[in-house]
């Protein structure tokens, strides 16, 4: 039974239409209110079982999904790589099929390999939500960033958003690029050329080599985490050097021609890609992103769950 609006799975924003993206954002808006209630729970997904299958470390995303599931009254089980039979060498599909044999409805998967979510979705009956696969996509992060921007800017058509930093390794950047382009925003990236994908110019995005130029142009900056665990490849000379050239600092923002919305998907490296007084400053919406994340995940789960009987 597939959702009439989203199909069976949510794997990425590349495959969604602008209309589907807008529907998710429009659904998430009113769902925010549930988290403000004394009893933070509605019965929409009562009786549904959701497995959170996280093969990579995650705090924010995993907890955000779990809150979203619980606030919709789904039953949840968390499976991590450590302490499960994955550490004994069981394959991804075998793990998922065994879970399915216990009758589940949905799998939320975080995996280090690009394409893992699609691979799984093609092989199991349960609905699959991609919670980040390798350097491919992180669709719910992209959606929550769009919601946060829309809360501040209204319609995103023609609005100027720059994605800063390690675009090369970033699934967040890819989901943002797809989502922003589909909603008609103007998109730029800014970072050292060694951390930008080769074909970035062909995606129809502007490229800034200097953060000062990006700040002059943009209405919002989405500042990516410098993935320190992937920095063995000699992409940048040093963290200090990176901060000196590409760090978003108060001094640089003070020279901007307008107030700039500051976003960061977390976890932050304070003093590297973003300075503390920017992260905690008046134009930072970083914690709004976290709040919106729960509502976006509730919207995605709710819309995926709302199927129609075959032929109905």
């Amino acid at each position, binding site marked *: 039974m597939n959702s*009439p*609006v989203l199909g069976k799975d949510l794997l990425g924003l590349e495959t969604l239409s602008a209309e589907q993206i807008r529907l998710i954002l429009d*659904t998430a808006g009113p769902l925010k209110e*549930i988290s403000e209630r*004394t*009893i933070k*729970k509605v019965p*929409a997904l009562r009786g549904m079982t959701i497995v959170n299958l996280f093969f990579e470390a995650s705090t924010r995303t995993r907890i955000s999904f779990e809150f979203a599931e619980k606030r919709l009254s789904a039953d949840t089980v968390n499976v991590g790589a450590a302490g499960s039979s994955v550490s004994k060498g069981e394959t991804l599909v075998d793990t998922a099929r065994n879970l399915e044999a216990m009758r589940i409805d949905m799998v939320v998967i975080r995996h280090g390999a690009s394409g893992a979510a699609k691979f799984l979705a093609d092989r199991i009956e349960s609905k699959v939500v991609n919670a980040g696969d390798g350097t491919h996509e992180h669709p719910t992060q992209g959606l929550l960033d769009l919601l946060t921007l829309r809360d501040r800017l209204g319609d995103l058509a023609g609005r100027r958003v720059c994605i800063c930093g390690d675009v090369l390794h970033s699934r967040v950047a890819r989901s943002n690029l797809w989502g922003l382009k589909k909603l008609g925003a103007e998109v730029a990236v800014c970072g050292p050329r060694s951390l930008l994908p080769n074909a970035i110019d062909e995606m129809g995005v502007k490229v800034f080599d200097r953060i000062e130029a990006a700040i002059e142009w943009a209405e919002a900056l989405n500042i990516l985490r410098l993935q320190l665990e992937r920095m063995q490849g000699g992409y940048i000379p040093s963290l200090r050097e990176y901060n000196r050239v590409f760090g978003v600092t108060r001094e640089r923002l003070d020279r901007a021609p307008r107030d700039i919305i500051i976003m960061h998907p977390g976890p932050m490296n304070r003093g590297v890609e973003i300075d503390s007084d920017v992260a905690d400053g008046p134009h930072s919406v970083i914690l709004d992103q976290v709040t919106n994340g729960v509502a976006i995940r509730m919207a995605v789960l709710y819309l995926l769950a*709302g199927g*129609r009987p075959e032929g109905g």
Partner: protein
Amino acid sequence: MARTLRRMADEIVERFSGTEDLILVGIQRRGVQLAERIAGYITEREGAIVALGALDITLYRDDLQTIGPRPVVGKTDLPLSLDHRTVVIVDDVLYTGRTVRAAMDELADFGRPARIALAVLVDRGGRELPIHADIVGKRIQAPSELRVDVLIREVDGEDGVVTVPREGEG
């Protein structure tokens, strides 16, 4: 419609002896505007402001698996505590009673009202649950092949009640 809503406003005030501790809660969508209009008539009559709220019951429905293609969730907005108050649920059409059941479930998550009453503009019969309205604008017996729609100027541009054949699911 104005005359009917005015009469419903009168009945609400008389039945609950005034406006103190009263809150009118409209069900999304058209119940919300109907509640606002009834509140307006009560204010005209009593000179007192009546508390208003809005309830979207989409997430409390018992038919998620069969919902239509655009299941957009509306806004629930209850500005004050419901504890010890008289809550009057306001909706446009009372049919199976399932919407009202969902509304009562949702209200229970917001507090413990002293009592809950139901006011509807049209009662069309066809109940599937043991639910009845306390205040009814108009009663009609409509067979299940027909859908009864209330039109209101805030949403539809005009006021009225229409019956249309049910095609697919409305």
